[in-house]
């Protein structure tokens, strides 16, 4: 139980650490950030297929979204 509380706390603190570490970026400085390669969900279909393959061959899943359809993948 103690270990679980510690895990959840460390997960919750990471965003706060990140927020503290960043400088303010103005809209006109965002040219590089706008490149398609910088998007987290750049190729939605490729990401979905890769996650589906790993879901069916490994025990771990999750982190990307909620409400995905399950399957009886062998």
């Amino acid at each position, binding site marked *: 139980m103690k270990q679980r509380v510690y895990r959840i706390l460390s997960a919750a603190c*990471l965003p706060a650490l*990140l927020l503290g570490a960043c400088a303010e970026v103005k809209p006109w400085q965002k040219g*590089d950030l706008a490149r398609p*390669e910088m998007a*987290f969900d750049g190729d939605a279909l490729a990401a979905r297929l890769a996650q589906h393959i790993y879901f069916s*061959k*490994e025990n771990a899943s*999750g982190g990307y979204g*909620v409400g995905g359809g399950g399957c009886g993948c062998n």
Partner: protein
Amino acid sequence: MRLQLTMPPPDQTQRDTASNGPQRGAVLAAALALPGVVAAETAPTDGLIAFKYLWYHDLQPGLSRITVNSPSVYTLLPVGPSWSVEGTVIVDAISGATPRYHTAISGASRMHDDRTAGELKLTRYFRRAAIDFGVAYSGEHDYKSAAGSVGLRLSSEDNNTTLAFGTGFTSDQISSSDGKVSGETRQVNDFLAGVTQVLSASDVAKINVTHARGRGYFSDPYKEVDVRPRQRNQTAVLTQWNHAFAGDATLRTSYRYYWDTFGVNAHTLGFEYAQGLGSGWTLTPALRYYTQSAADFYFGPDYDPVLGAPFPRGYSTNPPRYSSPDQRLSAFGAVTVGLRIDKRFGAWNVDFRYDYYQQRGDWRLGGDGSTGLDPFTAHFVQLGIAKRF
């Protein structure tokens, strides 16, 4: 475009002469229109239709296992200034053989199945928020799954921080083609909280925490002596960091820590390096490492002296409550090496990707891997074409 453009102070304008004029206007427009990174809550102005064909094949020494041929289509449609619709349809033709326990070749179960899966997502955009509603369905002759989800995103005034929250519900119906299992069900509730943060003019990071609570049938009806607990809670913490280098290069790094009530914990580390080569070409080599501990009730290929395979040692005198000989619940490490090639022609994009994947017990990091299993290898090839409109 609902966002107000903030003009830079004069010193900024003078410093960056290269981005003055129409060119800067274009970059600004692109930056401000980009969903998910800079201006999370602006409805997309362009539609997208993408088609992909996936060929997947896996094998182990002496046994060619599963082959999947899978065409899929994805579309994103802006609907007016504040709505969008996304739809995905995937059809899998799955055939081959899969071991009934561990990596045993003799008696491997042969199978053929077709799976149809679809997803629909509707998003409503507000000035600093977006709400999405999703439904998903996946159907095979022995497995049906239906899911619904709702999500909320909130972005800060400067668009540098986006918070995301979501919840979903999945309901599955499970049977087996040999009739051994029928009428089983599983329900999963899952939750997401995340933050996306612009760190600098060339760095953006995202952290998601997801938690899923599942109740019902988790066993594999095609594996021998496979009896799993009827509940599983899973938690994942995913960190992603994208960095833009000068010279049209991008490094995407991700790390996920995962644990569940089956006793499995897992680490996943991924790198993708996209290098623009000019004339619309982009080359993206990728590397992924995954490692997991074994489930508490996984047993290795050490069989009962009386009953023999596939029963675990001690089964004849004191059978355990839960047991599984599934390779996917063993302790192992896995490596994927991939290469993606993109070519852009105006509004069109064509892509090709090949991945080589291998799992081995002795590639496990931070513990002993399970012994006595054959390595598992998979190849995946994807061919795609997409058009913006």
